């Protein structure tokens, strides 16, 4: 009964949504004077940032990203608050089976490479596909790998939270410096340099690196909190 109801509801919803979506001329320009044209020209022209998505994420809509970083920060805070059990330390990790030596050695081998990849991705965020979020996630996967293969692998909560906080403070402070310097929040107050140089785009790479650190630290923290959860 409930299934039929839900299915019929979903059918109506789907039909209405699809009907409207089909009116979009897929794969074509379907609006004039959108903001994207401006972004596509202003990014290489004014900001000297090759990756337009990065310049949107960090500068044009940088405020969203600040919010987004906050969401992540809140998610870690929320998670540890929800799972927080009292004054005592986090419990021992539940171990289903121990990993083999091959896995352990392999992980050890891979770990620096993964971290390096992550750093590369967020440092080059304004030049190539990728950026702070992607790089941060890659770093977190490195830690995940280590956590999965070594049962006694410890990540310092203090370090994580310091990194997290410092990165967040960097982001917000750069915004505020922009406010003091150029009159608007997140104002790009540094020299923008030359397109496709590593040191180009003014504050954009700095912010993205901070975001990378933050995302990496937060995701690691999330995984770590979840892994250490047991009844």
């Amino acid at each position: 009964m409930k299934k039929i109801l839900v299915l019929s509801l979903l059918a109506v919803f789907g039909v209405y949504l699809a009907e409207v979506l089909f009116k979009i001329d897929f794969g074509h320009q379907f609006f004039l004077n959108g903001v994207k044209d401006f972004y596509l020209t202003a990014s290489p022209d004014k900001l000297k940032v090759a990756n337009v998505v990065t310049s949107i994420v960090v500068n044009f809509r940088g405020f969203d990203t600040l919010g987004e970083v906050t969401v992540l920060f809140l998610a870690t805070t929320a998670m540890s608050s929800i799972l927080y059990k009292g004054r005592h330390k986090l419990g021992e990790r539940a171990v289903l089976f121990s990993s083999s030596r091959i896995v352990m050695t392999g992980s050890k081998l891979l770990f620096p490479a993964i971290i390096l990849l992550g750093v590369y991705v967020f440092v080059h965020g304004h030049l190539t596909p990728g950026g702070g979020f992607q790089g941060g996630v890659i770093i977190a996967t490195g830690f995940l790998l280590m956590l999965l293969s070594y049962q006694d692998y410890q990540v310092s909560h203090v370090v994580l939270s310091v990194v997290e906080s410092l990165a967040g403070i960097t982001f917000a402070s750069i915004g505020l410096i922009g406010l003091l310097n150029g009159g608007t929040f997140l104002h790009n107050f540094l020299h923008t340099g030359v397109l496709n140089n590593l040191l180009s785009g003014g504050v954009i790479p700095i912010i993205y690196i901070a975001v990378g650190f933050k995302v990496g630290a937060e995701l690691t923290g999330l995984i770590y909190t979840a892994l250490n959860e047991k009844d």
Partner: protein
Amino acid sequence: MVGSPVLFIAIPLLAAFLIPLLGFVWKESVRILPGLVLLYLLYLSLTLMEQVVHTGTIVEVIAGWAPPWGINLVFSPLTGLLTTLMILMGFIIWIYSYRFKNIDFQEAVKYFILLLMLITGSVGIVLTGDIFNQFVFIEITSISAYALTAFYKGRDSAEASFKYLMIGSLSSMFLLLAIALIYSQLGTLNMADIAAKAHLMKPEFKILALIFFITGLGIEAEIFPLNGWAPDAYAQAPGPIGAAFSGIVVKAGVYAMIRVMFTLFDVAGTHQFLIVIGIITLIIAEMSAVRQEHLKRMLAYSSIGQMGLVIVAFGIGTEEGVFAALFLMLNHAIIKSLLFLSGSYLVYHSTGKYISEVDGIARNLPITSFLFALGSIAIVGMPPFAGFWSKWSMLTAAAHSNLILIIGLVLSVSLIELVYYFRVLNRIYFFPKKKEVVVKKPTINALLAMGLLGLLILIIGFYPDSVTGYLHAASQSLLDKGKYIHDVLSTGQLLLP
């Protein structure tokens, strides 16, 4: 630049990131910092508000890109009013929870970060002039709200939080769908720009986007079939958080919904729709409240009902109606917060937070009970307290638009409200006290917070002129869509690096 609206977002975020670090240095700072931030923001919002009422809307551009390219914050009389209200309520809630329950340090860090973000998110929803940015702020608010709902370690709080999260996820889905539809048509995300170009949208896109917005934001604004999460969340969250929900978060939800319906699109029938949906919300909520056994749940239903009333008032659509709606929002924020704050002390000793366990508690908690009574009397609209003036403005607005039926309805619902509030009051004051009950005395700062709210009720009650000027300016600024578009889109030439 002494005061810029962006500080309302930037400073709390900075503070939130700082709190864990400061905690390593000096533990008390974790509790103090949010208060200092909120106090400064309160001062800022009051000065900005004064400025805005006299000189006109401030549009703050982010990152130097003028609208519609960059994100912008709009500090108009309306948004300024709501910001001021939210910061004020936030500050009072901070005072109340300063020594809240003697939670340990680890918990305090999280509590204050989440509380600060709850307030900031709501302020962001109100201030921002960009729909996607609004979505981000809605999510900031929601995640803090989920976590705070589940803040107590009992099992019911997690349940309430999970329900909230489920419905909240649906809400964000609808918002994203609406944003996608709008973007696919107009290629812009700026509210003023959308409003200016709305006529270019194909009507079916416009209506579908509007429906998605209504559903998504209706969840935050607690309109009837979408508010299943609300009573649970209100009742299970800690007392100050219940107050924050009814005083801050819902207000932001209602604002967002009204902004979308009044400013973004010019679809016919929205006003009637608001009236109908508001009436349904009002009636169902008040009906559910009557036989409620849990005090906080009763307050939650009452809160939902009041939001229905606000939505009806917006639906009247005239300047008077909007004025009444804003006045109702203001009063409801103050009064319901007072009820939640004092009510949570009244049922502190009761594990189930049952109304039946407040018998005769006035003898032990005279001040708290008095403030609760003041709040109850004010919220049912008895003169000469704050609630009366808003109800009165609502009635005259309805009478002016010849909506006599609404008058009758509002008043009969007030009767229902009266019944359940007085049942509680009678119990508090005139029932014999159960002997074994050990009550919890409110702390000094809790008393201070409640006293401040009570004082506000009295001030607005005896001197409503203190706020009506701002409310009039705010209602004008909501209805003047052309001015909003002009204010935003004419902001400055491109500010470039």
